[in-house]
Each structure stands twice: as C-alpha cells, then as structure tokens.
C-alpha cells in the first residue's frame, strides 16, 4: 500500500519500503533537496522538516509513520520573491553561510518563534541546540531571530 503524504500543500504518494527515511523520500523521490542529508543520526538537525506542524528529524522518521500527514519542508516556507519574515531577517542580518545546516535551522526557528514569539536569547539558543552549524555562525542567526522577537514585542506594546 502506498504511503500518502501532503507535502507543502500537494498530495503525494510513495510506493517504496515503509521504513525508508522521510528524508530520502523527500530528496530522492520528490526531488525536494532543501532538507539536507548529513549525519543521519538525529544529531545535526540539517534534515529538519515539520510534520503536522511539529519539527521532526526526517532522517530518523520512517515514511510509514507519516502516512496521511502533512509535511512542510523549507521549499514550502517561502521563495526568493516572497520570503517569510524569518528568512528576510536572516538575510538582512547576513546570517546565511554555506547553506548546509541552514534549512534545518530555519525550520527549527520557524516553529520556535511560532510557539514563543517573544523568545529571549537563551530560549532561542536552547531551541537551536539540535542544529549544528559547522561554519559556527550561531550568533548572527540568534541575533536575527531576536530581531523578530523584538519586533513582535514592539507590536504588542
């Protein structure tokens, strides 16, 4: 029986083995290569996507457990002509480096800021502890997220 998944608003199906990592299905079958194939052990966060609104590590998620669920990947978040505010803040803060860890970081931060729009620096750092950046550009990434949180605070005043 094929696995049916809604990916970025589009109904897709996968007819392979149910224990295939969701990451491999996204990249190899649906050609969505934003989620990166790095550690495959759940340590680095480069393959982060949202399943039914929850950030999950797609390398450790068997596709069979995602049947009939909604998956949001970095491709579904915003594009070059229509960036979401977080992407804009990261670009304006010159936080983007090699791009390997970045899609995962954006997916983690998207959920974190949705849950905690007024997040403080420590909360943002804690929320990013499962995303490893080998360029070590963490501070500018955190600064960009803080800018959004500050804007949110101002909007609430």
């Amino acid at each position, binding site marked *: 029986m094929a696995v049916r998944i809604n990916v970025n608003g589009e109904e897709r199906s996968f*007819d*392979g*083995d*149910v*224990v*295939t*990592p969701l990451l491999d299905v996204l990249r190899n*079958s649906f050609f969505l290569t934003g989620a990166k194939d790095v550690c*495959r*052990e*759940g*340590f680095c*966060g480069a393959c*982060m996507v949202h399943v039914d609104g*929850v*950030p*999950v*590590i797609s*390398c*450790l*998620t*068997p596709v*069979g*457990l995602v049947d009939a669920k909604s998956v949001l990947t970095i491709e579904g978040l915003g594009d070059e002509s229509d960036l979401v505010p977080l992407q804009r803040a990261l670009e304006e803060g010159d936080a983007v480096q090699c791009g390997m860890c970045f899609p995962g970081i954006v997916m*983690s931060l998207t959920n974190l800021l949705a849950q905690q729009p007024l997040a403080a620096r420590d909360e943002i750092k804690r*929320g990013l*502890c*499962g995303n*490893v950046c080998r360029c070590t550009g963490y501070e500018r990434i955190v600064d960009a997220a803080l800018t959004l949180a500050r804007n949110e605070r101002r909007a609430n005043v």
Partner: protein
Amino acid sequence: MQDQQRTGLHKPETVAEALAALSDLGGGGTVMAGATWIMRAPFRQEPMKPAYVSLAQIPELHRIEFTQAHVRIGSAVTHARLVRELQAIPELRGLVSAAGDSANPAVRQAATVGGNLCTADFAAADLVPALLCQDAEVEILTTEGRQLLSLDAFLGLRERLERAYLLVSVLVPRRPLASAHARLPLRKAGDYPVAIVSVAVECRPDGNMRGAAIAVGSVDAVARRWRGLERAVAGLPLDALRIHQLALDLADEFVGRDGPEVPGWYRVKVLPTLVRRAFATLQQH
C-alpha cells in the same frame, strides 16, 4: 530507484490488536514507537526487522492520567509531552528535567517513554534513572494478561520476557518528594550523557532527609539505584558538599562501561560531581 525490500508496518488501534500482531510476528517483528532507535540500527550494524507494530494509533498509550495515588503515563507519550504536562508537579521536577534535557528538541518530539524503558541496549536513557528513583512501576501486557512490575524488576527481566509483550504504561507514585536530575553530555546537547544521576528525597520537619533514592544511569550497562550511598545519606541534612564526599568514598561500587565516547573509569570519576550537582539543585528548591 526504490528499495526492493518491503517491511511490514502494522497499525493496530488497541493494545489487544498490537499484542496479537506481535504474537503473530514472533521473532520477525517488534514494536515501533518514536523509531529514533530503530532507524539508527544500520549504524549499530544491526539488521532491521522484517515487520514492525506501530503504537501511533492506540489512544490508551498516549494518555497521561492523574489520580490521588499515581501519575499514569502511557508508554507512547513523548519526552516533549512529559515536559509540557508534568512541569507543574513539584515532586516530578527530576523527571521533567530528564525529559527536557535529553537528546535535542526534535528527538524529544518523537522519542517515547516506552522506547526509553524497553531499549535494553541503550544504557544512557535519561528517563530510566529518573523513574527508578521515583519507585515507578510498569504495566506490562502479555498473552497471560496485564501485570504490574517494579521498574527495577522490569529492567532485570526485559530481555527475558516473551517476545510478544507490550509496555502499556508507567505508574509514578505521588509522594511529597523533591527530585532532581543531573547529566553530563560531552557537549551541551545532542550527545548521549557520559553519566546520569537522579535523586528523589523526602525531608523530615527538622530538615534532615528521611530517605533518599539515588539512581545512576549510563555508568553501568543498566541503570540502577545506588543503595550504598542511599544508606549512607539517610537521616543526614540535605548538604550537597557532605553527600559529595560520601559519593567519592563509595564510587568504587561502580566499574563503568567502556564506550566509544569515554572509557569506563571516566564515567565513575564524574559520578560524585553529578551527585553533588543533583543535591545542590534540591537545596536551591
């Protein structure tokens, strides 16, 4: 090109259906909860099973229930939900800390209580010592029916239990305790902890400890209570520095398991410091 292998994935909706599926599969299948351990089988040079029984669609296993006597935690409850739903219960601060600091945020969204307790090869499971020092019991379903076991007994038995068994829930007694959890990963998050200490203490009106439960994880192959230290601290004031000295004196009760991240002696060496940190956290509360 798709993988030609076809793994079976059963999706029962009741525990009885899950048990029946496990019985039918015999050694050819096992339970799949959060799958975070199963999906790393290739890294451990372990073969995947021909079939799995998913617990995702069994409502009973996802419930957390509160009674006067217990908190009953379904085995498919994730670490992230434990944090969300138990953080207001003062006596379970240690368990909440164990769940909230383990692995990383996304793994905590998937990894389950049952997975932590049933994975015999995972020595560094945070929830095991945190539940051991709460004197937790586990509810097991086998073809013989349901039975309650102390977590301590379950850890000794789990590899010998018949293949078709299901961990249904964990029962945590409600008592006037203070609890804390201390762990040492090699970096701040993501790693398996080198050593883990969980403590739960009941204090007398004079401020001295009536009794202390102290559990150690990741040092030996299976987490266990540190009975020698528990006896030594009973009746003493809650004084982290004094208890640290006792832990230094008694640490040779442990040998320490060698692992790729650290040698066994290192785990034993850091143990007294983690004991001090856990008791210092209790003093702060």
